[in-house]
């Protein structure tokens, strides 16, 4: 009897709650799924917010229509949060941000400092931490997000995938997700780098659906090299080689190519399969220095000069040449960071902090100037393991 009354009471309570409404429920078809967000400052010092919202029925359909797969909304506001709310004036649906793929930061904002504007992306419960942060290089964020991409229907997905594949197989850039970025900005011993995005071709043509109706899309999006930051401001850009050097040092290089002209004519290209870098801080008389050891393993990828690959020495020479080449890139990156930018993008400061926390406390305040003086030793060890399907370069015997 007792039990029955309790069951009734609970059912009654549940019914009451149901009547009170489903506060938080939002139906799937009421959501505007945002895949990319662009932020920048306008000229009158307001925040500019651009969102790329997907049109689900266009993407998951058997019968494509002429409507574009994504739409763009643009608003301004005194804060980013306000700009998001202002967006409801334009968009029929509530912006749903959990599926965000890419956050694009405009030039103007990047030079002013991005940390204040990152707050909402970390604070709000709707954002998840797995989205890339990038910088729009030489273009406005809106133009960038407006470009329709061939093959991949959602431009934001295309950006994310190319960023991943550039990092995986070329190594001249790398993706960074928001919490890593915030951790690096907050850390005194390391400054972050951000990948850049740019438009190739005419921005206007890219917005039209005709852009993707052509085999050779006239306007395309490209992932470019890395932007060097000092704390939260962008202060310059690395060249492709320096970017690769940076990735070698920080151990983010997964796979890339190294090519160089050989003694006579032609090129040797080596496919780097995996790298393993370890950096250590050393102290001599309270002067810190960094030593980097890089192990590199690769294949011969392409060969069009007369080298006799059957001989063990020739593999040795290739090893040596690759080592030299990679070391150059790494040194270039360090030189750029130390001399041009004065920004510790490698995390050497954190290494020193871990090695000698007492010393670190004395230099922590103006680490970037100490960084300029820091001595770095580099050791590269390359190992070419295989030479592919051909035993020798394909040449005509003379």
């Amino acid at each position: 009897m007792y039990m029955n009354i309790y069951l009734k009471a609970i059912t009654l309570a549940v019914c009451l709650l149901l009547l009170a409404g489903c506060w938080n429920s939002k139906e799937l078809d009421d959501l505007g799924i945002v895949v990319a967000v662009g932020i920048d400052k306008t000229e009158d010092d307001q925040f500019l917010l651009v969102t790329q919202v997907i049109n689900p029925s266009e993407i998951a359909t058997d019968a494509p229509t002429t409507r574009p797969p994504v739409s763009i909304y643009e608003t301004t506001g005194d804060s980013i949060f306000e700009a998001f709310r202002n967006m409801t004036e334009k968009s029929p649906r509530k912006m749903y941000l959990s599926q965000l793929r890419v956050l694009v930061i405009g030039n103007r904002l990047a030079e002013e400092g991005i940390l204040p504007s990152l707050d909402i992306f970390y604070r709000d419960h709707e954002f998840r931490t797995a989205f890339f942060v990038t910088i729009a290089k030489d273009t406005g964020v809106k133009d960038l997000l407006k470009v329709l991409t061939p093959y991949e229907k959602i431009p934001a997905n295309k950006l994310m995938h190319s960023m991943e594949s550039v990092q995986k197989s070329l190594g001249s850039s790398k993706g960074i997700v928001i919490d890593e970025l915030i951790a690096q900005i907050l850390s005194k011993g390391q400054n972050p780098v951000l990948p850049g995005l740019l438009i190739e071709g005419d921005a206007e043509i890219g917005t039209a659906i005709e852009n993707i109706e052509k085999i050779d899309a006239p306007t395309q999006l490209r992932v470019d090299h890395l932007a060097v930051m000092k704390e939260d401001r962008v202060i310059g850009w690395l060249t492709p080689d320096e970017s690769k050097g940076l990735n070698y040092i920080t151990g983010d290089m997964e796979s890339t190519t190294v090519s160089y002209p050989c003694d006579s004519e032609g090129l040797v290209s080596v496919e780097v399969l995996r790298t393993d870098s370890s950096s250590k801080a050393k102290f001599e008389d309270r002067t810190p220095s960094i030593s980097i050891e890089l192990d590199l393993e690769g294949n011969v990828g392409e060969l069009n000069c007369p080298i006799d690959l059957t001989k063990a020495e020739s593999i040795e020479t290739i090893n040596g040449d690759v080592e030299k080449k990679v070391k150059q890139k790494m040194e270039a990156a360090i030189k750029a960071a130390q001399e041009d930018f004065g920004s510790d993008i490698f995390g050497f400061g954190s290494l020193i902090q871990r090695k000698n926390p007492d010393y670190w406390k004395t230099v922590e305040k103006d680490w970037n100037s100490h960084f300029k003086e820091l001595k770095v030793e580099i050791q590269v060890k390359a190992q070419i393991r295989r030479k592919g399907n051909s035993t020798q370069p394909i040449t005509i015997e003379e």
Partner: protein
Amino acid sequence: MDNQTISPRQFMFLVILFSVGSSILIVPTPLAANAKQDAWISISISVAIGLLLVVLYNHIATLMKGQTFVQATIAVFGNWFGRVLLFFYLSFLYILASLVLRNIGDFMTTQIIPETPLQFTHILFLIVVIWGAYLGLEAIGRSSEMFMPWVVLLVFFFTITLSPQIKMENLQPVLGNGIVPVVDTSTFVIGTPLLEMVTFLMIIPYVKDGKTKKRAWILGTFIGGAILTLITLLCILILGSDLTALNTYPSYKLAQKINIAGFLEGLEIIIAIIWMITIFFKMVVLYYSTTVGIAQFLTMEDHRPLLLPLGMGMVVLSIIAYPDVAYFETFINETWFPFAITHGLIIPLIVWIGLLFKSKKQNKTQQEPS
């Protein structure tokens, strides 16, 4: 109350769930903020101290001779002084229970269902807690056996899937800021949940088999402490101490980082489930011992009529307990530890001394005639 008993194993599970519940939510942040990368050392220290505390509680439990803390205190100090002590003890439990309720409510409304009014979340949660407390200790103990494997499994899964993202260097330098902040911070974990274990003095008389139950309590505290240490360690290893301190709920953020084969994302629900289950058991244990305590305080025969009225009060208290999160943070950082030590250590110590005297006297009276 109604002669329900639980087995030592069930008791151990309750202790584990109790020590993990709600602490797993709130512990990593302040720890990482104060002790930085050495937060896990702080937890280990406090767990070691907590084990000593449990030894004391166990000793008190033996001296209580099958009575609950409330009954024993009244028996030792009489109706007047005993009741004064108990008033504080019971109000401690009641306030603790409503704070725990608020914790889960806060978490749900910040992370999972932000637009739902707080009080409705509390009411729903409390209805189920009352249901559990109504069914009695036996059902609570058995349910803990049903849920414990899942909690262990989920914690295990959580650890395994996150292990590729571990960065060992986040732990270095060990003791970089010296030992002082580490020891200083360890008071936090002693305050919550270790001193809160004084609640079990209301439960332990209902545990069968006097010998293994002591071991069960100590082992339970140890395992619960180990889980807490593991979660904090994972937070620091993966997020780093800066981000851990920045997040309100770092372990939830941590779960967002699980990514299996690029497809299985969004597994933060796993940690949410662990939380809900463990916090639920903490609530049930607290609520049950509070109502049983109040019923014994008022020499009632049954605690069940009190369940619903006290629940109404708890919803109100949990709402007004703190106006905003900042208030809670200062309260938990500054006032909670002395508050918990008064009720979790000083009152039990007073009762302990009283019990010691009483048992000495009894021994004498027993020895003299013979």
